[in-house]
Structure formats: C-alpha cells, structure tokens
C-alpha cells in the first residue's frame, strides 16, 4: 500500500480490523466483575458458619492440590494446541485440545465429587452463609469450566470438519483467552477461599 498525498487517514497506524478479540477481552473483564462480587461476598460471609462446619473441617487440601494441578495442566496444554495451530498442524492441534479437555473434565469431575460429599455430610449451600457463598463462587467457576468444555468440543468438531480456517483460528483464540482466564480466577479461589479459609 502506497502512502499517496490524497490519503486523509494515517495508513500506517495498526488498528483492529474486526474487534472480536478486543470485544471478547471486554466480555472477560465483565466476567471478572461477577467473580469480584462473589469474592467480596465470600470475604464478608466466609466466617458466618451458623454453628456449622468451617473450611478447616471441610476442605481436603491434597485433593485441592490435585484439582489445581488438573486446571493448570489444562491451561498449559491448551497453550500447546495454540502453538500447534500456529504451525498449521491440524491433527496436533486437535490432539492437544483433547488433552486440555480431558484435564478440564477431570477438574470438573473432582469438584462435583467434592460438592456431593459436602452435601452428603449436611454441609450444603443451605447450611450457613459461609457455605452459600462458597457454593456460589466455586459453583460459578465450575459452571464456566463446564461450558468451556462444551465450547471446546464444538470447536474440535469445527476444526475437524473445516480445518484451521481463519474463522476457526479466531474462535480458538477466544476460547484460549476464556480458558486461561478461568485458570487465573482459580488461583484466586484456591488461595483466598480454600487456603485462607482453612487458616481462619
């Protein structure tokens, strides 16, 4: 493209041609607010046990460590899928996406298992304000991860059928942002809700 004298705009300035990634980032920021308010709830209500069990009685830290590892591995394997995609290797991309999906499914499975155990012990969301805020925050995060898995499967079908087209790449970048964002939120959850919850 030549810079002619008739050009009335700056031809060299980079600008988002279609703002999907920026728009998706702004969506993530709004999602950040949902979690921020749920964290605030947990910060305030986290010690209102109503004579019920506290975090110290309920949280299984070794299991939490495994759970955290699952989500981190899922995040990094999704990154490997992005690297394979950058090299136009469709099968490797699909394989890494599958690995990331399996790790995320393991995470959700362990979390559902934890919830079932807590409810069975009489420590359900209706037991105390602490447990209400706990189930809402952790449950919202788990729901996000579950929906992410559905999105991942959808895109795997898309990539399998139509290949690594420009549209599919853009979609995978969005899913990647979503995926890493959820891992980032989980750092806050395990640090603030679980580890600090056990201490106080």
């Amino acid at each position, binding site marked *: 493209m030549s810079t002619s004298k008739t050009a009335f705009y700056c031809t060299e300035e980079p600008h988002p041609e279609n703002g999907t990634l920026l728009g998706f980032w702004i969506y993530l920021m709004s999602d950040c*607010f949902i979690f921020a308010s749920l964290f605030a709830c947990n910060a305030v209500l986290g010690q209102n046990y109503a004579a019920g069990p506290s975090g110290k009685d309920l949280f299984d830290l070794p299991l939490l460590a495994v759970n955290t590892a699952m989500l981190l591995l899922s995040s990094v394997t999704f990154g490997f899928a992005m690297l394979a995609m950058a090299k136009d290797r469709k099968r490797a991309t699909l394989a890494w996406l599958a690995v990331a999906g399996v790790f995320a499914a393991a995470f959700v499975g362990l979390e559902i298992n934890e919830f079932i155990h807590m409810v069975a012990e009489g420590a359900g969301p209706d037991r105390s304000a602490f447990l209400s805020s706990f189930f809402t925050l952790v449950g919202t995060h788990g729901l996000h991860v579950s929906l992410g898995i559905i999105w991942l499967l959808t895109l795997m079908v898309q990539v399998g059928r139509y290949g690594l087209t420009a549209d599919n790449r853009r979609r995978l970048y969005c899913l990647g942002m979503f995926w890493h964002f959820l891992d980032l939120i989980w750092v806050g959850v395990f640090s603030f809700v679980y580890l600090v919850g056990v201490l106080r």
Partner: protein
Amino acid sequence: MNRSSGKVHTHAADHRQVHGHEAGQQDAHATLKGYLTGFVLAAVLTAIPFWLVMDHVIQSKETTILVVLALGAVQIVVHMVYFLHMNTTSESGWNMLALIFTLVLVVIVLGASIWVMHNENANMMPMSPQYAHHKMGS
C-alpha cells in the same frame, strides 16, 4: 472519493488473509518457552502456599494469610503475562486500557463492598448457636 474508498477496501482485504490480522498478532507472542516458563512459575507459586498451609511453616496465621495472598497475586500476574500474553501493545493498547479500567473498578467494588458489608455484618444481631441450630431445623 472513489480512489480512497477503493483504498479502504484493499486495506481491509490485506488483513483478511490466511491467518487474519489479529491471529497474526497473537502468534508472535506465543512460544513454547513462554508456556513452559509460565507453567513452571505457576507450579512453584502454587506449591509454596500449599506447603505453607499444610505444614504450618509460619507460626503466625496472619503472616501466612498475607504470604498466601501475595503469592496468589504474583501468580495471577504470571498467568496474565505467560498464558494470556498481556502486554501494553496488544490491540493498540486497548486490552491494557480495558484491564486497568477493570482493575480500578474491581478495587472500588471489592474494597467498598467488603468495607460496607463487613460493617453491616458486624452490626447484625448476634445469633446464638442454639438459636441457629433450632432455626436451621437440623
């Protein structure tokens, strides 16, 4: 007018090649080394707080809580840099601007909510364990 609108058209078409404008920008940041560095840092920053809490390394609870939260904050930055590839230039800086805007609002929302709600909560009528037990019906 015709000339310039034609120009705009080719300008847009330039970016819609195989990889797409945005995708190309992102590709440049993602490297195997980056992901592995992020993974190792995140693993270490996860292991330390678990170790601190599970083995009761620090005597003072308050200090442990502060250290755990500080390590969590550091890990969030690690995730943003190595996994989300945040930097000041992506999307002409709009990503960073949106992030800063969000952080400011989150600090206001979190800080103010915790402040106000904590006061409200502290001023609630105290509930005795017996009453709570009776009310819950369990």
